[in-house]
């Protein structure tokens, strides 16, 4: 762990401690979940920082943007909400509902656009798809973005998080998105992994595994895990089967670095299959 990471961990831990303390008098059954969500949010914000941005000032700015710890109790405890600030918080409740609708609509539109109204594009993209994947896999450790484009054609978009980028202005890490929810994750000009996140391409991995295959089948093909952890946080350890992650039934993760593959599961079925470069995970 670097000194910057230690500084961040210390600030994060202190903030979470304050939030936990503020929530201690609240009786809402979801307060533990709120704390976990805040922790994940902070981890994500830290991951988004480039190495030269990992400064105390930026860490402090992230914590400040989260807001005072007392807000969590006021917003989660209905009595406190009505007693302290009825109008603004009802307004926020309304905004929350409206945003869920807006984002839900956006997701539906995205699905509709990417999966249904473009059958010609997807059909075209599916043509010789296994051969194209084999070609990029055979050179995955040395291939560049240009090689990806040469094999798969121009992508639908370049994204990282919620941001979309132009090819001429790509960040250090980004995801190249193709039809059928096929993606390539690139970092520092190197391919990290190719990602199959939907059944649209019809891609079949070793042993007949594909997006939608049941967990038992994955274990039969790839081999049994060194350890199975149930109901706990996903630590992304190689060879460990994380089952019902953080209590969510059917949500699982299993990576086999020796076979250059990672699986995410939803309802105990593969929801995403990632094929990694040969040195994936080294230096983590």
């Amino acid at each position, binding site marked *: 762990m670097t000194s910057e990471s230690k500084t961040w961990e210390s600030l994060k831990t202190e903030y979470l401690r304050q939030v936990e303390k503020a929530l201690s008098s609240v009786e809402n059954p979801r307060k533990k979940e*709120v704390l976990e969500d805040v922790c994940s949010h902070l981890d994500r914000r830290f991951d988004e920082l480039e190495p030269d941005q990992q400064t105390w000032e930026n860490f402090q700015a992230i914590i400040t943007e989260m807001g005072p710890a007392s*807000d969590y109790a006021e917003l989660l405890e209905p009595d406190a909400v009505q007693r302290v600030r009825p109008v603004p918080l009802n307004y926020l409740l309304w905004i929350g*509902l409206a945003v869920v609708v807006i*984002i*839900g609509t956006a997701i539906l539109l995205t699905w509709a656009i990417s999966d249904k109204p473009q059958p010609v594009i997807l059909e075209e993209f599916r043509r010789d798809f296994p051969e194209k994947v084999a070609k990029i896999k055979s050179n995955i450790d040395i291939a560049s973005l240009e090689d990806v484009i040469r094999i798969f054609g121009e992508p639908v978009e370049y994204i990282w998080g919620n941001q979309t980028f132009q090819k001429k202005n790509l960040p250090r890490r980004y995801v190249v998105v193709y039809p059928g929810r096929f993606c390539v994750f690139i970092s520092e000009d190197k391919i990290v992994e190719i990602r199959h996140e939907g059944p649209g391409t019809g891609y079949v991995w070793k042993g007949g595994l594909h997006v939608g295959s049941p967990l038992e089948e994955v274990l039969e093909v790839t081999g049994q895990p060194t350890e199975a952890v149930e109901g706990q946080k996903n630590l992304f350890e190689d060879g460990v089967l994380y089952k019902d992650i953080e209590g969510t039934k059917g949500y699982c993760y299993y990576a086999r670095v020796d076979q250059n593959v990672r699986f995410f599961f*939803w309802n105990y079925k593969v929801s995403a299959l990632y094929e990694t470069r040969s040195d994936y995970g080294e230096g983590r």
Partner: protein
Amino acid sequence: MVQTLKKIQGLKIREGNIYPILARLQTDGLVTSYSEASRDGPPRKSFKLTELGEKKLTDMNAHWDQIIESIQHIRKGTYE
């Protein structure tokens, strides 16, 4: 969701505010959450409105429209 809210002009919201609000909405049965694989890493938690949430949103929208209409009457002096 936080990014979307931050883009709304005039709305001042702290990044952390969204989590207790969503937890309240869940506790009240207005939204449900689920996880799905994301394009840039581990699966993310998503939210959707329940039937009750849809109804509540309709009611609150109507209430909000009523407030705006009432204020407009006051501003224009057409309340008599």
